[in-house]
């Protein structure tokens, strides 16, 4: 293992723990996401043929999605976001700065970056999250920002979504889980046994 990988070992451990939550979500989801129309399958399609010759196919989700899925999702998001903060702390351990201070910045624009990295208040410079790090490391972190790495579509950057979900989960609400068909059209979910009949 390289010196750098060794320094990031707790980061990789956090990510492995996030992946464990993903496995739990997949496992719980696998028991739930079974399309069908039998009693043993909570999701499916109901065929309403009360007005012949019309048959209306409606989506059924009679059992709510297990709350545990949302709880695992919240833990996954939090572990992944915390892993970024560990990246910053380990960089400070190596290059300089107080590793107990500052969170890994996730910014929306150059102005946002400047405001967060070089904060000013009452005409004076305030401590910033990257203080103590050399310019080369600050630039490496800058290049990972959503508005730089995903220029023109920063909202699609997975770490921008991660940051938003982590903030929401911490401060406001549990994320709702929901299911949706992978099919492009409703009729793609339905098998017609004999079209010529």
């Amino acid at each position, binding site marked *: 293992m390289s*010196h750098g990988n060794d*320094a990031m070992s707790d980061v990789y451990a956090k990510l492995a723990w996030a992946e464990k939550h993903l496995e739990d979500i997949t496992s719980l989801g696998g028991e739930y996401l079974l*399309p069908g129309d039998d009693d043993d399958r909570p999701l499916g399609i109901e065929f309403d*043929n009360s007005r012949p010759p019309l048959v209306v196919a409606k*989506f059924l989700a009679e059992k709510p999605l297990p709350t545990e899925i949302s709880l695992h999702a919240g833990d996954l998001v939090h572990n992944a976001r915390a892993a970024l903060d560990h990246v910053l702390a380990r960089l400070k351990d190596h290059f300089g700065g107080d590793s107990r201070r500052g969170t890994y910045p996730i910014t929306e624009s150059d102005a946002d970056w400047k405001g967060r990295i070089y904060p000013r208040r009452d005409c004076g410079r305030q401590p910033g999250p990257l203080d103590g790090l050399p310019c080369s490391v600050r630039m490496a972190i800058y290049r990972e920002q959503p508005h730089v790495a995903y220029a023109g579509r920063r909202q699609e950057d997975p770490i*921008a*979504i991660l940051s938003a979900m982590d903030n929401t989960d911490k401060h406001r609400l549990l994320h709702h889980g*929901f299911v949706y068909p992978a099919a492009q059209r*409703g009729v793609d979910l339905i098998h017609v046994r004999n079209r010529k009949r």
Partner: protein
Amino acid sequence: MISEENVWVSGQPIAHGTVMARFRIRGLAEGLLRVDRNAELKLATGPLDAPRTTYEDMIARVRGIADTAAALIDHHS
């Protein structure tokens, strides 16, 4: 089968009772239509109107940042 009309398309909201399709048939409906048991359902969490990604992509993106940081340390050591 006289006709089939698709109603729901991917990306539209879906909930218990959402109409997916309508069919007009001759004779009895029983046994003619079935759910495709191989149809795949996916799971998501978060606000419906927010930008989307996968959990795998989130983790991979953070891992990429960690790898870059590790390389910086290696380069400096």
